């Protein structure tokens, strides 16, 4: 839990993912499209992976991955990210972290 909390308070966009998860891959693609490079933590490759999974569930995520945090605040999973984006609320949140090459 501590690790997760520490990681989430990192500045910017944080994405908890699993390397085998294709839905996480879709979210990564979306951020890429929006000019954002999130900090990605592949919890299946982390020794404390299972702990992190449990912690994420406890934080309110229905599925542990993908879990998106922006500026330390939990945005949610794919559903929430998509809804936010279509509603026009995602881009304003990402603006400080957008970098188009």
């Amino acid at each position, binding site marked *: 839990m501590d690790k997760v909390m520490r990681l989430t308070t990192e500045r910017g966009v944080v994405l908890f993912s699993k390397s*085998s*998860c*294709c*839905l996480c*891959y*879709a*979210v990564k*693609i*979306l951020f890429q*499209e*929006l000019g954002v490079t999130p900090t990605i933590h592949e919890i299946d490759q982390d020794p404390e992976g299972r702990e992190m999974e449990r912690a994420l569930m406890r934080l309110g995520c229905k*599925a542990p991955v993908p879990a998106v945090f922006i500026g330390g605040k939990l945005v949610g999973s*794919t*559903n929430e990210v*998509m*809804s936010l*984006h*279509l*509603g*026009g609320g*995602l*881009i304003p949140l990402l603006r400080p972290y957008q970098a188009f090459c």
Partner: protein
Amino acid sequence: MPFSNLPLLVYIYQIWEEEGIEAIETWNVGEQQELEGDEESKLSIALDINSTCAKVAFFIISKSMNSPTPQFVPSRLGIYEPIHQIGIWGENFKSNGNPNTSTSVIVEVDNKLENESETTSHEMLTASKNYEQEASKPIDKIQRRLAQNREAARKSRLRKKAYVQQLENSRLKLIQLEQELQRARQQGLYMGGVLEGSHIGFSGTVNSGIAAFEMEYGRWVDVQHRQICELRTALNAHISDIELRILVESGIGHYFELFRMKSTVAKADVFYVISGVWKTSAERFFSWIGGFRPSELLKVLVPQLDPLTEQQILEVCNLKQSCQQAEDALSQGMEKLQETVSSTVAGGPVDEVSYIPQVATAMEKLEALVSFVNQADHLRQETLQQMSRILTTCQAARGLLALGEYFHRLRALSTLWATRPPEPSLP
């Protein structure tokens, strides 16, 4: 006398407005070689313009009295045909209120038929009465035969009507059955493939989940169609915004209902949803992760929504863009999933008899497909929701009508395609 030497049977027919042809009088002109002078003059084609007859037809059967079946050939008034022809008057006559008044049509039979000028009804009736008095003996027989003819003709018309109706119904039924068969066949192939390829026995829940969905979806389409008609009527009638809002809410809610149904059946069998067998063929052509593309939805809707305010145009533009981005992200995720499953199934030595590990691993990965279908439906739902927020009630109603009509037409296209005539086989 032109009639001499001509054994003819002249059927005088009176056509009622709705009942068709009825024989009212028959003269066996052949039995009377010669007619009296005044008969002759009255044997001219004349019409009682005061009768109630809508049309009057006459025909002359062939010389042979053994062929009582009339040769019924319509010809225009005034055209003089040789024997075997008939003439039909198409004019409507004034009604004198009594549909049973017979019109006597006296035919001057010659090698040329001559139309005389109209005579009065009195003359007509007199003439026919006179003639009847002359030949009273065969009248009973004639009357009986006429009655039989009437009855036969009536029955024949009813039979024909019933037959045509039956044909129409059968044709519709055939189209429906063909469609059902096609769907069942695809499903049968699909289900057969699944059962063959898996070592794990499928319980009945898979089938029952699909069966339940099929039934519900059939109902869903019917309700959809009804809602479209209601929307169309409401928009034309310019009902109040409040009433229109109710229709819009129920329309959107109806789509949400479909997404719920799909979510349930996806848990039972995700391949069923993705394959799109539950949709018509044209709809399937446009299928994207088990349903319509959200961007496609916007493309269909937006042209129907003019005029939009500047603010609305901006918002719709943003929605289009974010929708496209989300769609692309999901599409790429799906591609990744395909790659993953493919490499898993193909992995390992091919000369090994046991491929269970690869297939079992692939099974795990396929679980993700359910998430993708759910995400795709979520995207569709969000798109509808956002449009509903951006648009006015009236615009939203028009949009729903356009969308519903679009899918309805796709379904009609599928039916038309399925029933097109077969291509000629090559020689």
